């Protein structure tokens, strides 16, 4: 009997303490953000103990503590599953959140509602933990909806701005469409397997898991912004940068991928769903990488980069490598959060300037931010032996050497080179060259809150890949032997992307921008997808409803078929065939005269 479950529950309870304290005087205190940050850091350190126990001995635990209700034959209880996935994800998420909270103490310093901001961030973290450690689908759904709601509240943080409200609503609506799939899966499991517990689902044999897995795929498409339900992720950049760093890069958007990874025993034997996942992920990663090439807002480029990496994770699940996808989730969290924090530092230093065409020459002025931005971009593109290498390179190798869809593989490789291209674009426009911003801004990055938080994630971006991949228990065996050209594929396409982008940027630096070509317009307007979908679909449904309800039922069936058609027909025919002049008195008089005459004459008939 060891302290595994006690430490884990302690860590989760520490997280909820500042929320409970928010009804006391502590909440009005100016030090409340500091308390929240400290609580998160303590929770991280305490959760490292069970993780190290797990790494040492491979111990997994399921804590099932409260029986809620039993509905006829199904038992619902509160249970936490602390296995490989949740034990490694929880410390990573807590570490990244600790850094982001310290960063947002600097970023949101002048906000009057900073206490409420921290409370929302902490609520989000708690629901994410609930999602990750859930052992039954009901608890997972609670966490799922919780992160959706907190995403809505945090994206619309500056609610006076119309665009922020629209973006928050967009996020909720797209997530809702995914939730339909989740609920369908829950209903199927309830009807066919009589349970919502993951253990019972995995041991029950059934021939055809197509329908619930399709539902899970739809849920992942909605939450992880795959192609078809993707526009909410770049719009979500309306929220403050810490929100973008926490939710929309490391934790919330990986919830969809995490769900598919949780259900990998069901997906292992279902080739159809794997192919669907693979193709969906491949389309997503290529499409969003193309869109990222011509964006001008630094946060939108990083958002599309996130979307592209999420597509890559779906590709990994599609080639039946859930553990690699999970490794990519953990490593991606480090450098993506750091990229967002560096862009937040740049934005704040330039007095809220987000357009990369108005930045430049920050290499000498913000040396630390420049360093971390470049290291983060290199880690993202999979530079050998940085963090991204240990997951991304393994993914590309596995995809190259597996019996998979060649088209999906090809466009994944193209998207990998485009990753390098837009990373070069960020670095070139934001950091290098001569400054393009107004010189009257005092630029200072000397705040210890900023420096320490980015420094922690920087060390994580460099070393975390090595540490994690050499500590975990071996799962699926990676492919050891392959031809040298396959092994060098990822490196070659990335280098190609770097060189091409650098050459193009340097060559066209001084040229005038002519009329944009069709490809530019396609990429810059996000493939016309939001323009079409947000206008055509509502207009079609509203027109159909108006035509069927108002025109068809009311006007035609109730009014026009009998009453109005009869009156119209009568009027038309009477005007057509009547040739009277309307002299009524004459007609009446002649009638009377005729009657009198006939009575008189016929009376004396005989």
């Amino acid at each position: 009997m060891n302290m595994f479950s006690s430490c884990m529950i302690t860590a989760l309870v520490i997280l909820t303490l500042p929320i409970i304290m928010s009804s006391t005087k502590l909440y009005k205190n100016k030090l409340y953000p500091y308390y929240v940050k400290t609580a998160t850091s303590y929770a991280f350190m305490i959760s490292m103990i069970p993780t190290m126990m797990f790494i040492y001995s491979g111990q997994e635990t399921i804590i099932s503590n409260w029986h809620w209700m039993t509905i006829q034959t199904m038992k619902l209880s509160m249970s936490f599953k602390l296995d490989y996935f949740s034990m490694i994800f929880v410390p990573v998420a807590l570490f990244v959140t600790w850094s982001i909270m310290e960063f947002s103490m600097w970023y949101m310093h002048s906000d009057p509602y900073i206490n409420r901001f921290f409370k929302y961030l902490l609520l989000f973290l708690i629901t994410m933990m609930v999602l990750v450690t859930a052992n039954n689908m009901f608890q997972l759904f609670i966490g799922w909806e919780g992160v959706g709601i907190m995403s809505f509240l945090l994206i619309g943080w500056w609610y006076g701005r119309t665009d922020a409200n629209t973006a928050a609503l967009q996020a909720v609506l797209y997530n809702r469409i995914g939730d339909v799939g989740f609920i369908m899966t829950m209903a199927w499991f309830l009807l066919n397997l009589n349970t919502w517990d993951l253990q019972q689902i995995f041991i029950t044999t059934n021939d055809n898991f197509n329908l619930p897995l399709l539902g899970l795929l739809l849920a992942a498409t909605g939450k992880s912004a795959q192609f078809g339900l993707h526009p909410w992720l770049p719009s979500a950049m309306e929220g403050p940068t810490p929100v973008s760093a926490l939710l929309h890069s490391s934790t919330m958007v990986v919830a969809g991928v995490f769900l598919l990874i949780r259900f990998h025993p069901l997906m292992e034997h279902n080739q159809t769903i794997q192919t669907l996942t693979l193709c969906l992920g491949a389309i997503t990663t290529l499409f969003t990488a193309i869109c990222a090439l011509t964006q001008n807002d630094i946060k939108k480029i990083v958002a599309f980069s996130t979307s592209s990496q999420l597509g890559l994770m779906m590709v990994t699940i599609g080639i039946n490598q859930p553990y690699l996808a999970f490794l990519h989730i953990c490593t991606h969290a480090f450098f993506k959060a750091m990229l967002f924090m560096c862009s937040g530092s740049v934005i704040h230093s330039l007095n809220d300037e987000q357009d990369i065409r108005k930045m430049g020459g920050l290499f000498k002025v913000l040396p630390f931010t420049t360093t971390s931005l470049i290291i983060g971009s290199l880690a993202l593109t999979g530079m050998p032996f940085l963090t991204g290498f240990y997951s991304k390179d393994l993914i590309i190798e596995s995809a190259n050497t597996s019996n998979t869809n060649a088209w999906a593989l090809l466009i994944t490789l193209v998207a990998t080179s485009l990753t390098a291209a837009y990373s070069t674009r960020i670095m070139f426009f934001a950091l290098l060259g001569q400054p393009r911003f107004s010189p009257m801004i005092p630029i200072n990055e000397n705040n210890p809150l900023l420096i320490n938080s980015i420094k922690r994630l920087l060390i994580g971006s460099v070393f975390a890949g090595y540490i994690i991949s050499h500590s975990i228990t071996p799962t699926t065996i990676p492919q050891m032997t392959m031809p040298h050209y396959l092994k060098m594929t990822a490196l070659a396409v990335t280098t190609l992307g770097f060189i091409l982008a650098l050459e193009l940027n340097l060559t066209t630096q001084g040229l005038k921008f002519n009329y944009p070509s069709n490809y530019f317009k396609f990429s810059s307007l996000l493939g016309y997808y939001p323009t079409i979908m947000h206008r055509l679909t509502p207009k079609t449904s509203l027109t159909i409803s108006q035509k069927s309800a108002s025109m068809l039922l009311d006007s035609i069936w109730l009014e026009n078929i009998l009453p109005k058609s009869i009156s119209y027909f009568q009027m038309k025919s009477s005007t057509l065939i009547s040739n009277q002049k309307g002299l009524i008195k004459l007609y009446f008089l002649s009638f009377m005269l005729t009657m009198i005459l006939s009575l008189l004459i016929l009376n004396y008939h005989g």
Partner: protein
Amino acid sequence: MSMVYINIFLAFILSLMGMLVYRSHLMSSLLCLEGMMLSLFVMMSVTILNNHLTLASMMPIVLLVFAACEAALGLSLLVMVSNTYGTDYVQNLNLLQC
């Protein structure tokens, strides 16, 4: 033929004359139409009651119903004419307007 019948028949003829001969208002012919209906109703009821034609005692009711319908129709036509011209003078019903 007894006196009652002649009386009612005379009422009918009078209303008929009134309907066919009038000066300007369309309303007067409608009123005389009602008078005709009334006299017909009375004659029908007296005949049936006097000759004990029990099976035909439904007919005055039916006559009343149709009289009501036709009165409504006549009135609606009057209202249409009056809407167009403001009065119901019969000299308005020429071909210039419908």
